[in-house]
């Protein structure tokens, strides 16, 4: 039974990609024994599964995803957090207070106020209920300093690169700590504002040129050039968290 398009070929919604004994994977669907693409992207297959690597999309929460969110409201039992997804997330007070919580005494806005940024993990999400966040984990909690940039969630894998090659390059090159949220928000913390500015500049270029060839090499060159221009402090020792 044939595959009807080549591997890595660009497909658009409604394109017929396979017939017969294949399984419809990510961004595809099956109808009358035929498999069609449902998003714009690149076709690929593994074993018997055919799928499409989407080139444009939005963030849908998944359990254990590291996300960066903004507190947008406070309810009786916790905080409502915007995580750049179609659904607002909930952070319950029990995640924060180790002891029992007394709504009369404890003022939630003193812990996280509206507008505050959080680094959190998705504890549970199943589409019938809004996602629930947790702060239990190393490095999670309130974001007190640093800069946050937004990028298309589908391009996040490109920013990370093969086994983290791209993000390591940027971290080492700029001496900044960089935390990549799966939801398309990236937190950058540097020693100097200039370091942060160069990291942002590089990330913007990665986003814009995400689909051009030899990007990792070109970003390497760019970092060298920036170092000469503004003199970013080289910090190979500076361990970064991810």
């Amino acid at each position, binding site marked *: 039974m044939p595959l009807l398009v080549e591997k890595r070929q660009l497909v658009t919604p*409604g394109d017929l990609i396979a017939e017969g004994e294949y399984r419809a994977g990510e961004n595809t669907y099956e109808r009358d024994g035929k498999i069609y693409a*449902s998003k714009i992207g690149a076709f690929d297959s593994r074993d018997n599964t055919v799928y499409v690597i989407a080139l444009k999309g939005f963030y849908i929460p998944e359990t254990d995803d590291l996300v960066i969110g903004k507190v947008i409201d406070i309810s009786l039992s916790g905080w409502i957090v915007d995580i750049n997804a179609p659904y607002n997330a909930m952070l319950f007070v029990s995640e924060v207070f180790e002891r029992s919580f007394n709504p009369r005494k404890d003022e939630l806005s003193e812990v996280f106020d509206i507008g505050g940024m959080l680094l959190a993990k998705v504890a549970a999400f199943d589409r019938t209920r809004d996602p629930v966040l947790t702060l239990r984990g190393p490095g999670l909690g309130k974001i007190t300093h640093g800069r946050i940039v937004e990028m298309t969630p589908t391009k996040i894998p490109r920013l990370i690169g093969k*086994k983290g090659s791209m993000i390591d390059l940027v971290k080492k090159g700029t001496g900044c700590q960089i935390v990549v949220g799966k939801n398309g928000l990236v937190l950058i913390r540097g020693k100097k504002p200039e370091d942060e500015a160069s990291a942002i500049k590089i990330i913007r270029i990665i986003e814009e040129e995400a689909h051009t060839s030899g990007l990792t090499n070109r970003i390497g060159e760019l970092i060298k050039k920036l170092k000469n221009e503004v003199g970013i402090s080289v910090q190979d020792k500076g361990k970064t968290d991810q």
Partner: protein
Amino acid sequence: MSKTKEKLINKKGLRVDGRKPEELRPIKFEIGLLDKANGSVYMEQGNNKILTAIYGPRELHPRHLALQDRALLRCRYHMAPFSVEERKSPAPSRRKIELSKVIREALEPAVFTELYPRTSIDVFIEVLQSDGGSRCAGMTAASLALADAGIPLRDLVVACAAGKVDGQVVLDLNDAEDKLGEADMPLALFPQSDSVMLLQMDGTLSQEEFEKAFNLAIEGCKRIYGMQKEALKAKYSVKKEDLEDLEGGKEG
């Protein structure tokens, strides 16, 4: 049976804008020109100039409208006050509400709304300059914008009108032909299964004329469908080797 003396098809068999009876107006798509919207398309079809924007899936307000099993698709078709010679009132009119409804109903079966329950997907179609057939162009542009927004679709929806002018069946009527001609029949097509998503008609056609116009409109839709796909592919053209990197990051 034309009420006016004005000829809409000349002796050479050409129409008021110099087209042949079965010819489409020139079509142009520009994808992703609005930064804030999740997806956007600017489309020109002859003198029609239409801007569409997609927001969503996003949290739905007011909340009580939320559907527990699927996303709510909302659609707003609107003509700018300056889109026609005589000022068009920007207030919602019977026509705008009707067109919003039929466009929504034509687009909805193409969208996998069941994947995003309790959210809304908002479609905005703004006609900046109108020259007949703007509902069809609006639908064509909106389905392309949905794809640009990264919303999963079964297929693109495409629409085109056919009608009767000076006793002859023609494709893709412009404003003059729509107003002075005998019939105008917009049709929206779901190309993958050849299903008709919308079929309306003003004026009168005989049974044979109807069949001819129907087939001509489907033929026109298929031609526009090809252009839609080309426009999308041109926007997202990617070199193959880069995708390996893109995928490699998934493990990271």
